[in-house]
């Protein structure tokens, strides 16, 4: 079904992605990530010594600080912080640096829809830039459901507000492995088909949600490729510059 989107994209098309690493020189890892007009700056400081009060000292601790573009830090920011913190805890290798705290700061530069997915994608690149050990990356996408039942990917703010419902989905990065595919499967499905996190707004039927999950998975393959290319290209240094 043809859907008219204001910016002329098709239903499955993502907005143009840009990513610049190492933009802040004091932070251990930093990235400026944008998806269309939504722009987020992520910085990672750590690991620093000591854990916070109620955290397990045998594992690395993460704290996420979300700074909105304007206004005070409120409940929405705390919710985003909690989702990001729990996602980070599931993708990082926690026992390499026990009894340490790594701080992740997300600064929203512009919010034009799909803010949480944008922040998560930025956060992953920032973690890689800082050298924090990870099991795998995570990629995030926003799917919205129109009244007609169409599923659109990566909506802008205007689209999010007029749609019946939207879902933020976080999946693990697709794996590129030398091991045979069968051995990597969990419950008979490849690992990247699993869902790390999900947050929905608006009412939809369960079948629509499963449809969003499938579309989201298909789209994360594109995001995973983009990430892989951006993260690899930094390391092709000119051999003549090496001492």
């Amino acid at each position, binding site marked *: 079904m043809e859907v008219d989107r204001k910016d002329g994209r098709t239903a499955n098309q993502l907005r143009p992605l840009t990513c610049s690493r190492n933009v802040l020189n004091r932070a251990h890892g930093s990235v400026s990530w944008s998806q269309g007009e939504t722009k987020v700056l992520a910085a990672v400081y750590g690991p620093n010594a000591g854990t916070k009060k109620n955290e397990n000292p045998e594992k690395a601790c993460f704290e996420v600080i979300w700074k909105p573009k304007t206004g005070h830090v409120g*409940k929405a920011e*705390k919710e985003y912080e*909690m*989702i990001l913190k729990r996602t980070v805890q599931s993708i990082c290798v926690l026992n390499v640096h026990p009894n340490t705290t790594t701080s992740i700061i997300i600064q929203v530069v512009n919010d034009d829809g799909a803010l949480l997915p944008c922040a998560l994608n930025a956060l992953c690149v920032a973690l890689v830039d800082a050298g924090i050990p990870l099991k795998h990356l995570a990629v995030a996408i926003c799917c919205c459901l129109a009244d007609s039942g169409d599923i659109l990917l990566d909506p802008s703010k205007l689209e999010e507000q007029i749609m019946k419902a939207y879902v933020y989905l976080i999946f693990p990065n697709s794996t590129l492995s030398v091991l045979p595919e069968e051995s990597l499967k969990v419950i008979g*499905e490849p690992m990247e088909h699993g869902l790390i996190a999900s947050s*929905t707004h608006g009412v939809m039927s*369960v079948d*629509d949600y499963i449809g969003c999950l499938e579309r989201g998975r298909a789209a994360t393959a594109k995001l995973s490729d983009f990430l892989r290319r951006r993260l690899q290209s930094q390391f092709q240094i000119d051999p003549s510059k090496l001492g």
Partner: protein
Amino acid sequence: MTAANGLSDLSSEMEVDAFRRLFPLRYHEQHLLKSVRPDARKLGSARDTTVALGLANSTDQLLLYYLFSGVVQTYICIFAAGAVASADGSALAKIGSTTMLAAIKMEVMTPTVESPDEGSLAIEFHMPPICSPLVRPGRPADVASVISKQLSDTILSSGMIDLKELCLVGGKAAWMAYLDIYCLDADGALFDAALLSAVAAFSHLNIPVVSLNDDGRIVLVSEDTVQLKLEKEPVNTEKRKLKLNSPPFSLTCILHKNYILADPIAEEESIMETVVTVVLDSSYQLVSLYKPGGPILGHTSIIQDCVALARQRVKELQNVLNEAISDMEID
């Protein structure tokens, strides 16, 4: 391995309580192997749920004594009689030991310019230190802000309350409903109990009678003057009840390896970190599926199992709520 042998020697000599404290994950896993949980529940069944409506009024303190026992009851009575003595709608919901007290107070205010014929809701979730040893006075728990936001989002997006019903005089006066939910005992599945108490409080809500006085302001018509002849016609005739279209109900599940445990207690939540909350409304539409990260990935089959468990739970909760409403009407 000698370490494992050392552990198993220790565990064979130890008392059950000590083993539970020192090796909580192994304690729970041994139960899961037999498809049961430490409190003898099946994996997919929820704890006993009770709802009592209209508790935060001075006449219902006898009910409070009935529901609680021990030291807790003194706290509750002081709390309910002092702070919420005149709430327009209130309810107490208990899922196992998790207890939530919800109270609604209505206030007249001018509606916004963008929606002049709609009232509004302000939803706040509090976790006072009484609920858990992990919550200390001063800094509010992070969990409280997150649950507060989740509750607002769920109640507003489910369309349970039509804000147009809260309008009094178009463009000039509308109701603002302040819903406050206090956690009295935090023993897992906080969101489920909070949502249940919110829905119950809205079912109990009696909108007060108001009338327009000479200055053009809305005044509350109190119980006494209703008996006498009123000089001005009340703006809304009789105390009204809000119509709830398809109230949402939720179920929180924990994922651990291949198991799905419904309605976790606080101990299970702290050792098994992957939590999924499914909120369905009465027509089984998905209002919210919230999975805030966690080591276990949610494959489609797992999501569908969680939704199926939530569907059963919606039926149970609807029965509990309907019983509570009919008990209240008998009184």
